[in-house]
């Protein structure tokens, strides 16, 4: 069979697969969960095939990029169907953040800045949800804003999720009194700087167009000195660095960070220098925070896939090194 024919066949198979499952979903089909036996079998199959790849490599046949891609895809997708759960150890920086929120007195105002967009949501959305939940549980007032255009939309999604919980419904939280969403403002780090003098000048109205003055929660909030704590969910620029440099360094705000895992390493310098109270780094940080808050959210659920994919990457690093040493240092460098 020619490559072209194979490609068309694969494509057709994918289309059929999607159609079948879509029809199944539309007609009310439930989600799928593997039984523990099947899960173990899948894991065993993966390990065996990896060993096979190792054997191939030792025999001198290097695998191509595409094979690596297939493994990554499988390692990420299949664990979502497995029924296992894992114990999550808490790192000190996450504990520190949780503690700093816990010391806030009820009624304290917490400013949450949503500085990310949908592509980074898988990592940051779970943090946003559990952080807002924690604030509401401890009767803290939540003020939301965004330096990224799509941030406030993400905030609304998180709020909706949290407020749909029965425990939260019982609290009867009111928009404008217990939480507000001030929306997005252009100007990157300059927004933070100007908020140092006046929130209102940057956010004359909230997300819905209500004027700042008619929102009871923020009416008396002039600038950072009326905020007891702030939390920044950040996926890049503008984000945590700017918040630390301006809000913390210039206005002495207490700041906690929720970062994508890529950004997190850079933030440790700020943690060490005492500029931030704690850091949630990546999905793992989110999962740790969820377990501190005694809540099983998406981060916890995704962690299995995360662990699997790490193992796959590590396995391929080992295979790569085996190939490298066996084929002689110099020549391996030239191969892909």
């Amino acid at each position, binding site marked *: 069979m020619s490559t072209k024919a194979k490609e068309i066949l694969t494509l057709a198979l994918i289309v059929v697969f999607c159609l079948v499952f879509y029809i199944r979903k539309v007609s009310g089909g439930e989600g799928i969960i593997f039984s523990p036996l099947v899960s173990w079998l899948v894991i065993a199959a993966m390990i065996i095939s990896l060993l096979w790849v190792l054997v191939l490599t030792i025999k001198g046949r290097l695998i191509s990029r595409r094979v690596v891609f297939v493994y990554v895809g499988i390692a990420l997708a299949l664990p979502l169907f497995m029924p296992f759960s894992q114990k999550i150890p808490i790192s000190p920086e996450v504990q520190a953040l949780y503690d700093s929120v816990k010391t806030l007195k009820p009624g304290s105002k917490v400013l949450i800045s949503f500085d990310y967009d949908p592509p980074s949501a898988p990592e940051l959305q779970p943090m946003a949800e559990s952080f807002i939940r924690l604030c509401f549980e401890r009767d803290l007032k939540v003020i939301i804003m965004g330096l990224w255009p799509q941030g406030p939309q993400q905030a609304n999604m998180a709020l909706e999720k949290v407020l749909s919980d029965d425990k939260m419904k019982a609290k009867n939280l009111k928009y404008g009194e217990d939480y507000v969403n001030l929306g997005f403002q252009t100007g990157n780090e300059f927004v933070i700087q100007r908020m140092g003098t006046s929130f209102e000048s940057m956010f004359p109205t909230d997300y819905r167009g209500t004027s700042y003055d008619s929102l009871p929660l923020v009416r008396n909030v002039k600038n950072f000195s009326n905020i007891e704590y702030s939390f920044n969910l950040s996926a890049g620029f503008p984000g945590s660095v700017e918040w630390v440099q301006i809000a913390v360094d210039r206005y002495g705000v207490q700041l906690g960070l929720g970062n994508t895992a890529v950004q997190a390493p850079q933030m440790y310098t700020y943690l*060490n220098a005492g500029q931030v109270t704690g850091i949630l780094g990546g999905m793992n940080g989110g999962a740790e925070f969820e377990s501190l808050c005694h809540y099983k959210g998406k981060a916890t659920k995704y962690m299995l*896939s995360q662990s699997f994919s790490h193992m796959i990457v590590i396995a391929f690093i080992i295979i790569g090194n085996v190939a490298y040493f066996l084929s002689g240092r110099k020549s391996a460098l030239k191969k892909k």
Partner: protein
Amino acid sequence: MEHFSLWLAAFLTLGIISFLYKDNAWYKLTEAIFVGLSAGYWFVALFWDNFYGKFWIGKDEHLYLYVGAFLGLLMLLRLIPKIGWISRWPLSFIVGATSGLWLINYFSSNIMKQVQATIMPLFSTQYGAGFNAEPATIIGNLVIVFGTFTGLVYFFFSKEHKGAFGYTAKMGIWVIMITFGASFGYTVMSRMSLFIGRIDFLLGEWLGMIL
């Protein structure tokens, strides 16, 4: 419409993923849609957020905004080839302002702040994320001080990396390599979670396979 929306989103998602296999017509189509759509998105966003939101609304109250509009206008003179060179003026304005602003900002946050943060007793208990003053802390503090020091030696331009200086520079690059390794390790995690999000869409939201 809901069915169409979901299938459209899935079609575009899979189109991008198909690039992993090889460059193909599906990817080219999604790429073209993406380029046109995103350029248009920014056009609209900059128009409403910046031009309308910043300039048009605020122009009566804040006269200084006219300076921005003037610079923008000079920029647009590029469209007329004969006097296009005038656009260098707003450009040099921006370059000058950027240099002036960032010179001091980076000086204060990247140099002064970092030096200040490194000055501490070797057995500082307050150092680190709430760790205790144990041998590990002292070793850690030593690592920080000498790591920063040797790292800076590596960046020295005016001396060849030879002799004792060379060894110090070498240690510097070791520390930098550990930094990069740790960063990379951390990032592997971040990147993996992004795709989990897309799988959640494809297999969960779209095909309803995930609980």
